[in-house]
């Protein structure tokens, strides 16, 4: 089976149009091609839209499998918890003077006030850490072989769903609402054959581009199947 190999990826920070070259191995045909619009969207490692990430490994990945897209929820979706975190960190500077004015704080033992304040800031830090981790580890991966949906719902519950490209029947995308339209993010619904579970990429950037790229991969898979059933 012909396999493609990523030959070179240059991502100079100052370069507006990153250069990505894919090359075939031993003169075989390319298995997939990246859409030019996607190549312009290459993000850094903490981005919510990373094209051809080089240092990403996921559980169950084949050695000859190439990760094409690593997607997370759009950064804008983090704004509510960031605002809440800022309020949490600022709250003591508002509440403490009020408690002093009400003569409540001086009545408390110094140790309790100190540990209580430390606890508040630690708990706020934990809130930030957890929200960042949920965002960072809830990823959607598109490879040349499959799509993977890694969901981390809570501390004790996570779910990993995969679907082979050859098992995908239909791909559609949805963008609804003002904020989603302005920032170009939405859902991609991936319908799989038979009893397999459908996969939903939620709130990802550029859903139309992602859907088109998956459709291209489906066509490439079909061609490969025709040549080498």
């Amino acid at each position, binding site marked *: 089976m012909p396999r493609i190999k990523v030959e070179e990826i240059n991502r100079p920070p100052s370069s507006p149009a990153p250069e990505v070259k894919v090359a075939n191995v031993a003169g075989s045909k390319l298995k997939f091609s990246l859409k030019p619009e996607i190549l312009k969207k290459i993000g850094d490692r*903490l981005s919510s839209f990373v094209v051809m990430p080089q240092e*990403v490994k*996921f559980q169950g990945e084949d050695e000859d499998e190439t990760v094409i897209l690593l997607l997370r929820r759009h950064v804008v979706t983090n704004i509510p918890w960031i605002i809440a975190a800022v309020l949490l960190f600022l709250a003591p500077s508002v509440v403490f003077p009020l408690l002093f004015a009400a003569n409540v704080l001086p009545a408390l033992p110094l140790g309790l006030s100190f540990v209580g304040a430390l606890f508040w800031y630690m708990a706020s830090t934990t809130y930030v850490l957890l929200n960042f*981790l949920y965002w960072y580890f809830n990823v959607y991966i598109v490879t040349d072989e499959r799509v993977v949906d890694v969901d981390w719902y809570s501390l004790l519950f996570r779910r990993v769903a995969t679907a082979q490209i050859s098992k995908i029947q239909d791909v559609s995308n949805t963008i609804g609402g003002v904020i989603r339209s302005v920032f170009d993010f939405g859902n991609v619904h991936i319908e799989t054959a038979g009893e397999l579970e459908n996969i939903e990429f939620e709130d990802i950037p550029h859903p139309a581009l992602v859907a088109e790229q998956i459709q291209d991969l489906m066509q490439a898979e079909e061609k490969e199947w025709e040549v080498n059933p």
Partner: protein
Amino acid sequence: MSLDQLIGFTNLFTFWAFVKLFFLVLLFFYFVLSLVIARQVDLMNQVLGTNISPFIRLVVIVHSVAVAILFLLAFALV
């Protein structure tokens, strides 16, 4: 010290002992939570490994240590 003062003092002592106990139990569960976060991050790093995975692991370990120190501080100061 009158009897009323003694009772008031005893009640106050019981109250602060209760507050300390409450804080210690709260911080103990908080410490357990931080360990669960560290364990879960380990598991997630196995599911998705990136080049900043070691850094994230370090952050959650530092977080657990900080919570442990807070627990000890509460034990000593409250």
